[in-house]
């Protein structure tokens, strides 16, 4: 670990020199490639340091991203971090592809109904708690203070829907890192994935209602159509991608990691343009591949382990660098209140509603549900774009919550997996 610390400090020293040297130039060039290289290297060595301290590597990636990013030491400019959006989409797709290969038909039959019921309970209770709190603190939130009661109710519902969301990305990355295998891990992964499907549907409905409350009119057909397209269209496109992957794996048999990176990138970019969910597209593709050809699923798993480390390190370090620390100051108290309420609601609902046949679920499951990352970021950005009058302020509130959740979530998820006794290795080679 000492070596990793020295290397990390040297890297940060070089970054400091580069950021100072930039002052010599009147106008800077593009900072995106610098951000990519710096975050990748810093992320990797910070991950090693974190592992040495008994923390998830992912926490190291996030923290170093925060440290060198524009809101702390400022070695990497904001434009550089923003330019890495492409990598974010790619990482989410790759992670979802791996997650999909875990979704075997047998597993869905075994735990599908129980997970769906528990998920509905957890999401419902968390939503109610956050909805009530958001509406109650209306006078404290500048963007809600002047709204009418129906408008405030609709916006509270919208905010709470986003606040409920989980992070399949973090969960799957930690599962990969620890090589965790077993019923608890399966249950947790299925729960975060299904939870996000619930959130996607609920978000579309809440957005439609909010639009109507601000005078846009409630277009039920359009609303159902867009939700249906996002869900079923994503699954259909995912099935097509699965066929492409299988044909490639049978015909070409070379450079699979590179091919999967390219395909995931296409899924992320193309999916976003077609108003599909890139997460669901890749998830469906992975699931279909694993269920049609088990060996192909295992090969994909192995290939992404090879190609995944740089993508994951960069993704989480960039996520850390994008966390707006100043947002914590402006909307901090309300954000912290919602963080605490969300945590308590998840803990309470898991304690009450988790299946009794496995006591670990009642005891530790809640810890795996605290993280928030890519999906929540995406929904917050969508609120900002869809509702320009108050959306940007909602985004600040949610990003402040994500900041808190990103810092504690991965540690809790790892602790949950460790406590469940399903962690197989200290570290899986080449993963997050």
């Amino acid at each position, binding site marked *: 670990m000492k*070596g990793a610390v020295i*290397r990390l400090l*040297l*890297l940060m020293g*070089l970054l400091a*020199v*580069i950021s100072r*040297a*930039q002052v*010599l*130039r009147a*106008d*800077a*060039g*593009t*900072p*995106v*490639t*610098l*951000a*990519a*290289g*710096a975050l*990748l*290297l810093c992320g*990797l*060595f910070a991950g090693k340091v974190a592992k040495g301290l008994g923390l998830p590597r992912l926490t190291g990636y996030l923290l170093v991203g925060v440290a060198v990013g524009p809101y702390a030491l400022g070695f990497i400019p904001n434009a*550089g971090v923003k*330019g890495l959006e*492409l990598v974010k989409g790619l990482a989410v797709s790759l992670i979802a592809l791996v997650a999909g290969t875990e979704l075997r038909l047998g597993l869905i039959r075994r735990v599908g109904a129980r997970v769906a019921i528990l998920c509905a309970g957890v999401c419902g209770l968390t939503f109610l708690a956050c909805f009530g709190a958001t509406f109650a603190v209306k006078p404290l939130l500048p963007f809600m203070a002047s709204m009418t009661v129906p408008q405030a109710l609709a916006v509270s519902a919208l905010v709470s829907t986003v606040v409920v969301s989980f992070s399949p990305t973090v969960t799957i990355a930690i599962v990969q890192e620890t090589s965790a295998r077993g019923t608890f891990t399966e249950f947790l992964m299925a729960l975060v994935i299904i939870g996000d499907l619930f959130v996607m549907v609920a978000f579309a409905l809440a957005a439609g209602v909010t639009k109507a409350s601000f005078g846009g009119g409630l277009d039920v057909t359009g609303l159902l159509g867009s939700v249906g397209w996002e869900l079923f269209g994503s699954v259909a496109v995912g099935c097509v991608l699965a066929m492409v992957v299988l044909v490639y794996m049978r015909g070409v048999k070379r450079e699979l990691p*590179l091919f999967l990176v*390219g395909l995931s*990138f*296409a899924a992320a*970019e*193309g999916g976003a*343009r077609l108003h599909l969910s890139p997460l669901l597209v890749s998830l469906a593709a992975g699931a279909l591949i694993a269920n049609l050809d088990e060996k192909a699923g295992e090969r994909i798993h192995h290939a992404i*382990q*090879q190609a995944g*480390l*740089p993508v994951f*390190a960069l993704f989480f370090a960039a996520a850390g660098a994008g966390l707006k620390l100043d947002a914590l100051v402006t909307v901090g108290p309300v954000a912290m209140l919602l963080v605490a309420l969300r945590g308590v609601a998840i803990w309470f609902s898991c304690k009450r509603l988790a299946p009794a046949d496995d006591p670990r679920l009642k005891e530790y499951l809640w810890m795996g549900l605290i993280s928030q990352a890519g999906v929540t970021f995406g929904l917050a950005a969508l609120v900002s774009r869809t509702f320009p009058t108050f959306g940007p302020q909602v985004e600040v509130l949610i990003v402040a919550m994500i900041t808190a959740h990103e810092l504690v979530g991965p540690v809790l998820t790892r602790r949950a997996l460790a406590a469940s006794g399903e962690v197989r290795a200290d570290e899986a*080679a*080449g993963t997050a």
Partner: protein
Amino acid sequence: MQALLVLLSIAALSLLASSRALDPGRFPALARLAASGFLFLIFGVLMGPSVAGLLSTRNLDGLRPVVALCLGASGVILGLNLEPRLLRLLPRPVYSAALAHAGTAFLFVAVPLVAPILLTSGLSPQAAVGAAALLGAAASLSSGHFAVLAYRSGRMDRARGLGVALLTMLDDAVGLGVLALALVLGASTQVGEGLGLVCLALLLGVMCGALLAFLTHSLKDLAELTTVTLGGVALVGGAAAYLRVSALLAGVACGATLALVGGRTVERVARALGRVERPAFLVLVFLVGCGVHARDWGAWALVPGFVGLRFLGKVLGGKLAQRLVGSALELPPRLGYALIAQGGLALCLVAEYGMLVPGGLSQRVLDVVVVGAVLNELLAGPAFRQVLGPPRAATPARQDLEVAA
């Protein structure tokens, strides 16, 4: 979206290039262009803003980080190939021969083209000299891929093939040296400042190379090594792009430093980079093609001069090189004809020049070199046939001795 379009285009072109549709027997020129990657260049031109417009100028600006990354990677790969032990072993006549043929082509192109550039651009003599120097630098470069293919297929003596390849590799140093000179003259209004920027690029490369050597020193895991290598390449290319200095020169300095101090990890780093070399090259070539202004008639007017003068320079330079090299290196007769193919580094030079020297002149240089490179690649096939003779019988031991000499 533009990145997705580039990715899909390159994937489709890769499929086309590796399919039977481009049978070398039926379409030799197209197959040659596909093998050298120049087919991607042509498709880039066709998709770019000045022809089909599928990618706009704004899209290309958004893809600048990718160009910087590819230039940095190319530089590091070039730098890693500088093996100090091998360079020390080479006798002086080999250097003289390399300098002779590269220098002749440089002078044949750069000197006559100064006047038309100066007259048509209306810019300062300093800028015109810089642009002409860069055209000369691009002309001085040669690719040894025909020679390598010929000796591998048994159509040329191995020693002769390696001799040609060695000379073309030494050209790269001339090309990079002239790029540095052109940037000194063109990247800033003052020569002193331009020199400072080139030195900054080299210093940055040396620092990144030393750091990369230290970072990779104790890494055992292949995935980690690949990650650090990719991160190091992005760091050097990105830092150079951020400070608006040459990513290519910084990359070369980084690779050379790594080769010098990296010890045993150098080979592993080179192998890790080798996996992304071809994709990075194809992306770069495609994007360079997209940047061509196909409707600049002034550039089209310069192309015949560029190609013709370079051809002449290479043929005469080849003769001079043969005379200078003496018995130190086995070379084929009519060496100049083996040096007509221009290679990808010429495109890297003009891409770098275009990024760092603003204005229409650097754009015109890019247009001339890109079109010239395609024409030279087409010319190189028939020209190389002039070099091939009946293979000589030589024992492998003797061949190796000759190469080592």
